[in-house]
């Protein structure tokens, strides 16, 4: 199953993803890589309920994304891969998922963080993870929805 978007979003599945990125990319599957959700069936079912019929949802521990992807790979379709932090995105890349572009949509504010975009605030770990990803050849783009201008790290095509 080809991945049409890899996105860092601390809210994982929510309105922006379902209402803008899913139609923009034509995706029919959301793969959520998040250890907390894997451990919390109630929150998983809450997020699943937010997704319209016809869009498949799969959850995976961050380190197991390659395995879960190969399991769902037999099906035709397009997937959006969601994770909650830039560190998780780097871990997924290092686990063997080779994506060329990374979209950063939402990383919430906390004291001491640097504002990158209205919905994206970087801690030191985010700068480090993004720098690693850029160094690995990933083009990192910051924007919440496909309709807004993007802030870009590195040189690549962007998030799609």
């Amino acid at each position, binding site marked *: 199953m080809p991945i049409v978007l890899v996105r860092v979003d*601390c*809210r994982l*599945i*929510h*309105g922006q993803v*379902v209402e803008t990125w899913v139609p923009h990319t034509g995706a029919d599957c959301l793969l959520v890589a998040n250890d907390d959700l894997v451990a919390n069936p*109630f*929150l998983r079912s*809450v*997020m699943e*309920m*937010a*997704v319209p019929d016809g869009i498949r949802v799969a959850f995976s521990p961050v380190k197991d994304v390659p395995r879960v992807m190969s399991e769902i790979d037999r099906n035709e379709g397009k997937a959006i891969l969601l994770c909650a932090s830039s560190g998780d995105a780097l871990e997924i890349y290092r686990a063997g998922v080779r994506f060329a572009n990374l979209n950063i949509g*939402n990383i*919430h*504010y*906390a004291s001491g963080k640097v504002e990158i975009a*209205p*919905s994206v*605030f970087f801690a030191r770990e985010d700068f480090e993870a993004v720098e690693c990803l850029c160094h690995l050849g990933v083009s990192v783009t910051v924007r*919440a929805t496909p309709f807004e201008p993007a802030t870009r790290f590195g040189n690549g095509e962007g998030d799609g």
Partner: protein
Amino acid sequence: MIGIVLVSHGRLAFELLRTAETIVGKIEHTMTVEMDAKTGMEEIHKSLEGAIRTVDTGDGVLLLIDMFGGTPSNIGLSFLGTHNVEIVTGVNLPMMIKLPMARTTMRLPELANYIREYGQRNITIPGDMLRKKAEKH
């Protein structure tokens, strides 16, 4: 009395309550929780928990949330298993105006049901209503 907490993106919850209060007067035991692009999920969870605790007088709390499937609803739903709450999503002004009277005569599950139906019934296409009326004559 059943407590009310409005939860929304942006300033919607606050403005909806303020607007309703200009029409029907002060709506007691009611709080608003709002989130913007900066707010983290844990922070919203904490604010919402505090608001629920504040407005609960023992009869439970009705959470009115702007839309199903957004972050406010994803977080609000997590209180269903742990607190005496009911949730209605897609809150609108007619619902808000009906609440003060309805909450004094109903228990929480009944109130949630009533407010949902009232809100749905008040989404109208007046043009259709007028055309139907004209057809009858």
